[in-house]
């Protein structure tokens, strides 16, 4: 029996530190030197090439804090959510990414022990003053696990459109909207012949795109994606990433992901969270290629997480 190997030293992680906010460069477009720096570090192919047309601020978080039963999960986070660029939220498990995401459409209200501080603005309107139904129509959400409802593909997409007015719209009246949503989610070609088939028979990747179509049908301004690919195979993941790229011009997209490479592939801006704190927010190239904060540097290079 040989002697026990010395365990690797445990890294000390800085906990209380000022957030590092990297201001976006003047004008729209990526800085060339940052891009080459990032490419040297991570050689993952990028999907977000091309110039962003218009960047519009859709949501603003101002000192947002969320606590579960008095225990803070998100601490005073201020962030913008912009249309035209994808915001990626990264960080280890339990650091408040999902909680932050769920407070954007007030889904944290569902948790009885949760309390919130700070303000969230949607198009300069306080979301707490909006009707929650209206807010959730404008801020769609897709979950980690594909969760189509146990009904047909058509009814799944039409679900959000129905019961809007006092009269239930007929199937024929809904058809154009349903097909448009499926088209935008890149699913129409695959399902157009069997729209009446049960949605739960689709493959996992198709189910997830159906969930995206279901959200798009309501016509949201912001789309929240909570680890949308972590239950999917690489091919479906790639399809969904393409889809995110094609949607980012028209909708502000926030994606939570555990997968750093994915964040690097799809996100234009990245916010790194750790233990409820916003540690660093900035251009994706900057956060991955030249992180300013020590914790970000260690996380991005695989030091912990």
């Amino acid at each position, binding site marked *: 029996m040989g002697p026990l190997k010395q365990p690797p030293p445990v890294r000390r992680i800085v906990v209380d530190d000022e957030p590092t906010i990297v201001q976006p460069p003047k004008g729209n477009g990526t800085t060339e030197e940052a891009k080459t720096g990032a490419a040297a570090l991570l050689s993952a192919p990028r999907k977000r090439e091309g110039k962003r047309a218009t960047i519009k601020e859709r949501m603003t978080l101002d000192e947002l804090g969320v606590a579960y039963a008095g225990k803070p999960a998100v601490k005073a986070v201020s962030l913008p959510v912009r249309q035209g660029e994808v915001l990626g939220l990264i960080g280890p498990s339990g650091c408040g990414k999902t909680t932050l995401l769920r407070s954007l*459409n007030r*889904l944290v209200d*569902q948790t009885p022990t949760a309390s919130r501080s700070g303000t969230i603005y949607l198009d300069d309107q306080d979301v707490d003053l909006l009707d929650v*139904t*209206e*807010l*959730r*129509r404008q801020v*769609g*959400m897709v*979950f*980690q*696990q594909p*969760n189509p*409802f*146990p*009904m047909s593909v058509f009814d799944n997409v039409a*679900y*959000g459109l129905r*019961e809007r007015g006092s009269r239930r719209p007929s199937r024929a009246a809904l058809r154009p909207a349903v097909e448009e949503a499926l088209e935008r989610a890149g699913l129409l070609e695959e399902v157009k012949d069997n729209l009446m088939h049960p949605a*739960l028979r689709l493959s996992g990747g198709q189910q997830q795109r159906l*969930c995206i179509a*279901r*959200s798009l049908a*309501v016509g949201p301004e912001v789309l929240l994606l909570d680890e949308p690919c972590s*239950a999917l195979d690489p091919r479906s993941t790639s399809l969904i990433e393409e889809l995110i790229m094609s949607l980012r011009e028209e909708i502000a997209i926030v994606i939570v992901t555990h997968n750093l490479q994915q964040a690097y592939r799809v996100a234009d801006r990245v916010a790194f969270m750790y233990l409820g704190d916003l540690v660093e927010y900035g251009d994706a190239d900057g956060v991955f290629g030249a992180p300013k904060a020590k914790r970000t540097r260690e996380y991005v290079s695989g030091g912990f997480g």
Partner: protein
Amino acid sequence: MSTPATTESRAETQRRRIRPPNLPRPRLPRRNRGLLKEEEIVPWSIGDRIGLAAAWFCGLLLCAIAGSIVLYMLVRGLQYLSVGALFEHPVILSTTQSTGTAGGYLDPIEGTLILTTLGTLIALPIGIGTAVWLSEYGRPSWLARAVESGVEIVAGTPTIVLAIFGLLVFTQGAFGFLSFTAEGGAVFGRSFFIAGIMMSLIAIPLIVGATREALQSIPAHVREASYALGKDKISTIRRVLLPASRKGIATGTTLGMGRIAGDTAIVVILLGATPLEPQGDVPILKVLQGTGSTLTSYVYNNSPAGEGNAPQKAYAAAFVLLIIVILMNFFVDLISRKGSDPWAR
């Protein structure tokens, strides 16, 4: 180099192990034979052997009991069963006997079907409503606990107690419209309505249990997906949760139907165990307000223990009842086997 040494030491330990001398070693499954040497197989202890034998015995005994019930009823039932009798009304031979001993058993079959349908129809909305409240609302929690124990108490009450309680309640004058009433206005508290209401109490706990389990097995993110589309709780329950738990509801309902079809006490006390005796003139209502009998009470009355003492009829009717209940159980199986969790990982 180290591999032969370890196998040898393992065989050494095996050999040193204290083992009863003459026990045969357990037989390995065919595909595993040859993997271990004979002396490497450790024989079972006496206790384990007795336990295994007891488990085998109990399982086979239950199979034998079930098989002999079905077989006996099959032989006896087919011996006395005539197809014509299925469609014949019973004939009352004397005024002292409440159930006919001549004729067929069309009335009891009709009675079983009417009573099962009625009891299930009453139990379904109440059971589903209770399950939805318990699973989706359930606040304040003390009230939810009270409702839960209420359901448990109803589930645990013997049906004869339910029957006596029903008689107590429904002989009150206010409930006269539900039941068989005499000329002078006396309320007998016997009718399909009343028996159906008390029968529904048997089915409600089963429906509540199955529905609740189905609702609770729906993952939270499915509910949240509906909320995230701007739906409120009510439409989520109606459009997503209830359709998703359809299979659970069906299972509970079929179980409840089997229990209703098999109950005797409530029939004898609250239905009268008479041939169909409609009350009043309104077409369907008159049957429901009147008294009748089911296969269970028919079997009881015609058995050697009952008044009719016509065992051959009892056997035939019991056979019909058994077939009905077995068919119901078969459907439960079919439904619950199909009902796998749609969102399972």
